[in-house]
């Protein structure tokens, strides 16, 4: 039977997979009895879990980027930023970093105290991109099945009307992760087991339930928010989970003038909604354009040196684990987007340095000395960048 979930899932379940006749007379199996929702099919039909890999290779996916692609990229990015800034006030740098992650095709972890507009930012982003948005409020009793979905037994009437008897079927009830933009709100309030339910989806863009692996819709972004770990009732995210976030963006408290603007725009009768500026396909194309940005060897070498410098061999006093190769990928991908958004066709060392903070801060694990001395990853990155500048 069709479901009507809170998250706007299709009423006709496209994931029904097994037919179990109630009477047991007809043993004929059917693949799917229900018709999938067209909109949902459109999202997932052409963009499977491999879509991002296609985007990584523009020759295969979308062809060689042209100046028109660049122009389109700029226009969409410009509009998107304007839409976000109009609604999310006083968080310009956060918006810029969010766009970096968005066009780099990566997930974002937003950290900040409650009430700073993290959820608003993510919701506005989904509105501006005309993408399916799902919000998961992480709580300590949240289970993994609540995220990825589960298989249930449902009664179903033969749609052809050949048989009057209803049949019971196993039907997969997709979880909220089956959306383009997933807001994992207060992700660190759930247990690590539930937090890890996002791992496969974030890395492989697929979800495995039972013996089936199902692709997630493309584009797929997880925008997680978390409260500072010092707050009560939080579970620190595992390193493996953290590593899958492309960027970790720190949401700071707005300034006084921004607070005044927030009051003017929010405490009133009008509620602002972002206008759509791009579709999912357009976003995938822009991701592929960004990935084609040229990058010189010396810039890549600098990124490698920067990454290696985060390891205990270099800053052994305070670091337990350094950044992983995913950190290097994050540096390069984000720097490409930043260069493009800065009006350049090449990645510079400055781009690498600028994105080093959001790309590496959650990948550097401090040891006891670092924690005891109140050292922050940002301070370490500062030191490393300074040392590399001296070496150069």
């Amino acid at each position, binding site marked *: 039977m069709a479901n009507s979930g809170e998250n706007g899932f299709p009423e006709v379940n496209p994931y029904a997979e097994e037919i179990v006749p109630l009477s047991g007379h007809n043993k004929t199996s059917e693949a799917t009895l229900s018709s999938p929702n067209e909109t949902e099919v459109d999202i997932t039909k052409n963009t499977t879990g491999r879509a991002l890999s296609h985007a990584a290779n*523009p020759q295969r996916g979308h062809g060689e980027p042209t*100046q028109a692609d660049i122009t389109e990229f*700029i226009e969409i990015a410009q509009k998107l930023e304007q839409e976000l800034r109009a609604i999310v006030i006083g968080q310009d740098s956060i918006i810029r970093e969010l766009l970096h992650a968005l066009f780099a095709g990566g997930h974002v972890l937003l950290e900040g105290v409650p009430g700073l507009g993290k959820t608003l930012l993510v919701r506005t982003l989904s509105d501006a991109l005309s993408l399916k948005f799902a919000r998961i409020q992480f709580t300590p009793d949240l289970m993994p099945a609540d995220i990825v979905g589960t298989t249930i037994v449902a009664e179903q009437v033969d749609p052809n009307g050949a048989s009057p008897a209803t049949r019971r079927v196993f039907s997969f009830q997709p979880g909220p992760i089956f959306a383009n933009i997933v807001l994992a709100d207060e992700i660190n309030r759930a247990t690590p087991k539930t937090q890890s339910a996002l791992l496969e989806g974030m890395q492989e863009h697929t979800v495995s339930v039972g013996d089936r692996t199902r692709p997630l819709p493309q584009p797929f972004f997880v925008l997680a928010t978390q409260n500072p770990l010092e707050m009560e009732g939080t579970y620190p995210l595992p390193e493996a989970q953290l590593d899958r976030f492309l960027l970790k963006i720190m949401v700071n408290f707005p300034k006084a003038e921004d607070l005044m603007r927030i009051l003017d725009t929010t405490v009133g009768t009008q509620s602002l909604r972002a206008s759509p500026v791009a579709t999912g396909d357009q976003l995938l194309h822009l991701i592929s354009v960004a990935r084609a940005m040229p990058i010189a*060897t*010396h810039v890549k070498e600098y990124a490698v040196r920067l990454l290696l410098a985060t390891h205990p061999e270099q800053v052994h006093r305070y670091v337990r684990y350094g950044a992983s190769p995913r950190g290097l990928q994050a540096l390069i991908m984000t720097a490409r987007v930043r260069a493009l958004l*800065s009006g350049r*066709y*090449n*990645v510079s060392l400055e*781009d690498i340095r600028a994105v080093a903070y959001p790309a590496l801060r959650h990948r550097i694990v401090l040891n006891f000395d670092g924690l005891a001395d109140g050292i922050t990853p940002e301070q370490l990155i500062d030191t490393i960048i300074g040392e590399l500048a001296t070496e150069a």
Partner: protein
Amino acid sequence: MATLMSSRIVAPMPKLLDSEDLIRSLRPWRKQLFRQQMLHWLLRGVITGLVVACLVLLAARIFPWATAVYWAVGLGITSPLLALGAAIWYRPSFARTASVIDKRLALHDRMSTAWELREPSKGAQQSSALAELQRHDALEQLAKSKPATAFPLRLQRSTVLTLVCATLVLALLILLPNPMTAILKQQADLQARLTRQIASIEKKRRQIDAQSTIPAKEKQLIDQILSDLESQLNYESQNAKSEAEAQQDLADAQTKLDQLRNPQAVTRIQSQSTAGQSLQHSSDANLQAMGQALANNDTKSLAQVLQNLASQASKLSQAQRDQLGQELENAANQANLNPDLKSALRQLAQALTENNAKEIANASQSLQAAANQTAADRNSEATLAQASQSLQNAANNLAAPTDNPNGTSQGQQQNQGQQEPGQGQGKGQPQQGRGKGQGGQQGQRDPGQEEGRGQGQGQPKQGGNSGTNGQGKNEQVYVPGQINQGSGAQSTDNNSSAVQSGDQVSYSQVIAQYSQMAHDAIDNSSISPDDKDLVHDYFNSLEGR
């Protein structure tokens, strides 16, 4: 609200640019960068050269460094040349030019990336369209600046200031008098003197080598000592050692030479001389001639005299033979310290008394052998004395500029006559204006020459210590010294002498006192009666008793 990107990125691209366009655009920048690099490196080289020259000249003010100026000039010139060479050698490549342009113009690695992606093979991994766009963007940014503006050929204020300061310091170091100049002059003077003295020692060494009258072993030892001394003096000359070290070397060598001298040989010589003098008082002509031959150590005359004596012995009466025998016996008693001579004289005396021609012949041969031995001793002693004297002369000459010129020159004049006995030596001391006389006169007899006019006999190890006058005049005065005090080669005057340093005291005033002191000392000592007699006779002869 800040915008995301500049408008130029969406501007239409006018035309496609290839790698040649990139090279063409970078070439003037590269040239300008090269010029700037040349200028900077040259200036750094000049500054480095000036600083190094200053340091060298400064060091030359702390340590005596004769060639400091040449080093300063050489380094001062070499440094800019090396810097210029390095600038040419490390001239900027296109890649480095692109990198420098990126940094100087804040192009955010546009030029570096464009240069790297200029070749198709390099850009194969990337989109060629994007590479083209990137190249166009980079050149567009580059065109906004001029090479001469971005890389100006002007000097930085700090560089000019450093250059001026270094030049001023160098000028001061050149113009201000160097306190080490006087030391260097002294060193050069010492070196010249050392060279001269080395030459003189070498000359003396060759003279000794050429002599055939001394044993080969002794000649070899002397040669070795002098050769070693030359080597040491050469080393000190080349390494700017002090004069004191050279003087010490000379003194050491002199001591070694003195150690080669045989004290017994001296006593033998003296005994022969005493015996000869005793025979000279004889009434017999042959014995007088024999005495003169023995005193002069003239072996040829001695042989002739002995032959005459042998031929005339049989013609003499027994009383005459007894008289001759008695005189020979007396002479033999005078030659106590020369046993061979004493024995030969006694044998001759007995043979004459007995009128035994055969014994007379045998005694003559023994006497001649003893005389020959004494002659050999005299030659060795003379050679050693000459060598030692030459070293003393070298020491005096070496000290010449700092010593009293009167004392030194006179000492030199005294010592030039090697063949004259009774050679004196004097060494003035600079601290005393009058030139305090220092050193003992050293007299010796040269074999084959006339009898030593110097009455004093400088005894090796026994130090004929005499205080001469401060002007170093050689008065041929010998006064007895203390036994075992000083050396024959170099002795010092001290307070034990009755003569005050620098005072002129005549011989007659001191000889009586010294003689009495010698008599008293020899009577109180536990030496053999013969030796006592020898000393008594010696001082008696000095007083003309």
